[in-house]
């Protein structure tokens, strides 16, 4: 049996690595001193990443939603203008008219309503 996509392994043990990355652990900035850090490079095919014991750390599943079901944005200003500096668009489910499923205008609205004040796009950084 083949595994889902590419199977990529790192050289360290997940439990030990997770101890090292706990909040407040001072040596987490020097992880490469204690662990053989991986350089996996670019990944663009379905892949799973495991530790040295086969624990599945990451499942990478690209293009699960086909384009017609992902969110599509038209030229924002031609439809809805700007809300608080955020370009707004429309959701397009199953490639139908945006009025059929107007999730994205709402999405932008509610994001601007419930989150921190929007910043200029080029400076936009999301922080937890």
């Amino acid at each position: 049996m083949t595994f889902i996509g590419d199977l990529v392994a790192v050289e360290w043990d997940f439990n030990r690595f997770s101890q090292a990355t706990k909040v407040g652990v001072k040596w987490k900035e020097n992880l490469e001193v204690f662990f053989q850090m991986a350089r996996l490079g670019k990944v663009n095919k379905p892949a799973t990443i495991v530790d040295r014991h086969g624990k599945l750390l990451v499942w990478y599943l690209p293009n699960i939603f086909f384009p017609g079901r992902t969110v599509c944005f038209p030229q924002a200003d031609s439809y809805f203008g700007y809300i608080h500096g955020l370009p707004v668009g429309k959701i397009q489910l199953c490639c139908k008219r945006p009025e059929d499923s107007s999730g994205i205008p709402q999405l932008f609205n509610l994001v601007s309503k419930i989150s921190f004040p929007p910043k200029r796009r080029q400076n936009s950084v999301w922080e937890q």
Partner: protein
Amino acid sequence: MDPIVQSASLKLPEVQEWLHQSEPMESLANAILSIVHPDLHQVGFEANQAYEASTELDKPCDWPSVYSGIDIIVNRLTPPHRDAGSAASSYDLLISLGEGHADLHLTDLGAQLKYWPGTLVFLTGRVLEHAVPEWKGGERVAVAHYMKDLLHDRMHVPCPALPTQLLWWFKFGSGR
């Protein structure tokens, strides 16, 4: 001990409507999680049920996910970070939507995952540092899902171990 309270944003009708409209996407994500990490799917479901049963919600809503928290990130860069609220062996779920091109960097692995719209990434976000340092070519939306470990703890739901390659083969392999 402080009572557990619902996020204030859930009281907004727009948020409830968005959750309602997101249900097909969330159902698919739930179904995929039930395959990639069945135990996590189960505990997420149990924790949410226990929470609903134990708490009088200000504004009951149809929460569509087995995850206990959802963040919507719109046109934002994401600096390198780890997700502090999750358990180490829990998967966070990132869904990339919108358009344009971005890479999801897993800095601890030296990996850059193509973050095309429609991409799902389950990752141990408490442990693996991740970032989206830039994006090009359009609007970007990421829907990030978390299981809050403290909530699961308060609901007396155990934290499952990470699935292994071997376990997965036993469970879903053809036996050959």
